[in-house]
């Protein structure tokens, strides 16, 4: 029995960004074929999702900068960079000369893009662990979104890419869980400010 060569993508899944790059390389190696309209639409949506998530994490980082919480700001900036790389990868994969115009989350209308962290869940004294918990929830929603697409009536090629993306998001969930182990869980009273904004007299 001939030993099968291990796929390249299995060996390069070190980071969420690196893994997406592997996917891009794999797809780029395939013979060029014009994507169907449904496929292109889906990729626009996937791009918008990553883009929204990047913008949201960037806003979070700026808020933490403003409130002198550099550790959490750095973490949000890192997450923003990762989401931005994913968005760029989609642009490259699709061969778009520039990002699609129809991205501004208007397609989500009365709901949030699945991978965007909730804007009201921040606290100026929050710790990296809590920031990662927010990110974990976002990645779980992304898994759910892409998995749902695989069970939908979408065309086969859309289901295929959705399946790949769901697998990637699951990998992100795993990685964030790994990162969570590196940070201590906040102790009780983490939000107690010795100089609180609440007037006390």
């Amino acid at each position, binding site marked *: 029995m001939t030993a099968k060569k291990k796929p390249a993508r299995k060996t390069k899944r070190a980071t969420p960004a690196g893994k997406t790059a592997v996917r891009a390389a794999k797809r780029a190696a395939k013979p060029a074929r014009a994507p169907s309209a449904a496929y292109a639409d889906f990729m626009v949506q996937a791009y918008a999702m990553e883009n929204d998530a990047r913008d949201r994490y960037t*806003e*979070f980082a*700026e*808020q*933490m*900068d*403003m*409130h002198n919480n550099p550790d959490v700001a750095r973490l949000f900036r890192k997450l923003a960079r990762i989401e931005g790389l994913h968005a760029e990868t989609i642009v490259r994969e699709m061969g778009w000369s520039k990002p699609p*115009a129809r991205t*501004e*989350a*208007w397609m*989500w*209308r*009365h*709901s*949030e*893009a699945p991978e965007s962290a*909730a*804007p*009201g*869940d*921040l*606290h*100026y004294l*929050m710790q990296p662990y809590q920031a990662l918990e927010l990110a974990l929830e976002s990645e779980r929603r992304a898994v759910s979104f892409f998995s749902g697409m695989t069970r939908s009536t979408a065309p086969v090629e859309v289901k295929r890419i959705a399946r790949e993306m769901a697998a990637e998001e699951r990998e992100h969930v795993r990685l964030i869980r790994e990162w969570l182990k590196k940070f201590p869980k906040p102790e009780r009273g983490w939000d107690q400010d010795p100089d609180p*904004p*609440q*007037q*006390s*007299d």
Partner: protein
Amino acid sequence: MNAPAPAAGLKPQLFKSDVKPVWCPGCGDYTVLSSVTKALAALEVRPENVAVVSGIGCSSRIPAYTTCYGFHGVHGRALAAATGLKVARPDLTVLAMGGDGDGYSIGGNHFLHACRRNVDLTYIVMDNRVYGMTKGQPSPTTEPDWDSKLAPHGTGLREFHPLVIALASGANFIARATSSDPNGTADLIAQAVRHPGFSFVEVLSPCVTFRPEQRNWKEMVHPAPVAPTDDAARAARRLMTDDGFNIGVLYAGHRKPYRPEMGRPAAEVAELETEFIL
């Protein structure tokens, strides 16, 4: 003056200035800022054709955070300034913005008459039911039993109902939005700007510092169960029985906007400039 031609392909980022907001992390006003920039991009108006006018308070800092023309004015007087601006420059898209204290207490009378005049502008109130900037005093929309150190056992006063007041006073478009849904809020703001006359959008925007329990609002809001109506009597019945968490367009009327004949200005800007040419 004619309205400027639409500018297609604008990005929300174009409307954000380099000044970073100093609001508390988690504050709903961040979302409202984001929603306004998304709405303006969708409306395809350029920043130089938009004026953001505010009063005083946390939320009234917003003009500085946009690249539009801005006027951070006197407490409670955002609508007075915005009305004058829109009447003088009908070509501009004018947004008046602020909080519940600024708009309903200090500016309460301006609110009534702005609704009554029905000038074609949009008033966005970020309602957190507290004076945040001055450390948490009860505002007109604060619940009567909200117990705090500054109002032990609550004020005992019935809260102001801005949407009912707006309807009774003649506002032509009334909507409620929530900061927990930035895209939905952007959509409602865009609809408000498009609608002729005085449009009022109340955004439930939690104060996470003085009213941390408002973080739960995101669980309490729900889409309005009925379609928008243009029947003021029906809207009144709905608003009077409203639970305060219905999100969507609640009234869209057909009153003709107030637009006085201004005549030709004494001088165009270019003519004035010639006087200074040496």
